[in-house]
């Protein structure tokens, strides 16, 4: 993982944009938007996860619930990513070697894989259990994993600020 120690990360911190964000009210502004957007990502995913577990909103088919929430989840995710990158560049070199930040990226990737597995592998057979209030074990595992991974992303994300 030599690239983590590359001096290029210092160059990123020296971009004029990085200095502008880091030295003005832009940083707390981006951070507060980041928290709201991230909470929205997790809140909307939580609604689908609880449905996958058969805990909530069982009246609605999983496909309808998920189809109507996904655009909101992605919209919030894009906002969280842009604001996150804005904060990242102000301390790029220290972030890439920060264990909490590294955990956050790994957990994000795992949460993404879990979601991709659901959408590309499981979703094909959706008709079989779409309206069922009691969901098959496979869906319960995916829903629980998603809850755990996203909570982990939040914990790691919050922890970044305690290490830097």
């Amino acid at each position: 993982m030599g690239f983590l120690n590359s001096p290029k990360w210092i160059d990123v911190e020296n971009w004029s944009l990085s200095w502008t964000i880091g030295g003005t009210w832009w940083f707390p502004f981006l951070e507060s938007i980041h928290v709201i957007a991230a909470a929205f990502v997790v809140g909307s995913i939580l609604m689908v996860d609880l449905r996958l577990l058969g805990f909530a909103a069982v009246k609605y088919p999983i496909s309808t619930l998920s189809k109507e929430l996904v655009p909101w989840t992605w919209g919030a995710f894009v906002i969280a990513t842009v604001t996150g990158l804005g904060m990242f560049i102000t301390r790029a070199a220290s972030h890439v070697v920060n264990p909490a930040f590294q955990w956050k990226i790994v957990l994000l990737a795992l949460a993404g894989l879990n979601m991709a597995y659901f959408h590309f592998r499981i979703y094909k057979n959706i008709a079989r259990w779409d309206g069922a209030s009691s969901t098959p074990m496979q869906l319960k595992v995916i829903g629980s994993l998603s809850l755990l991974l996203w909570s982990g992303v939040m914990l790691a994300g919050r922890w970044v600020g305690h290490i830097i």
Partner: protein
Amino acid sequence: MPDYFTSIGTLLDGSFLQSGALWALSTIPGFPPIIQTVHILGIAVVMGSVVILNLRILGLAVPSQNITEMTRRLMPWLWWALTSNLVSGAFFLFGRPLRYFNNPIFGWKVSFLICAVLLTLFFHLMSRREEAYWESSSKRLWSARAVALLSLMSWLMVAMAGRWIAYVEYIYYPA
């Protein structure tokens, strides 16, 4: 800041509540980030309950879901999340009471929170009074939209102000 507000801080400062909170925050490994995460997960539930409901009422999200049914299903989640956030927030509040009760942004947060809770409580109670209360006439539906818009903005401002407590000097620059 009003005097009675800052005096709450003085009252808590040095009390057993402060020593208890400081003990937990400094003794239990990883306690501050863990409690902060619990607090943010509570905000996630606020987003996944009242914020989504307000977006639904405004006609922006989840069109297949029914407003009355959503209110009944989601409101318990909101009230539990708020209870949880009061507890997780109390650790930090009790730990450094003067930091919060002398902080104008914390005052804003509490004001927005009171607004948000009152609007949401009003919406919830009316919907319990009569089946499909908010959907029974176009006048009521428009009132619901007005309440939803104000409530949505208030909830977002609570979260926004919460984060800015740590950055108070950006707004109230020390003279």
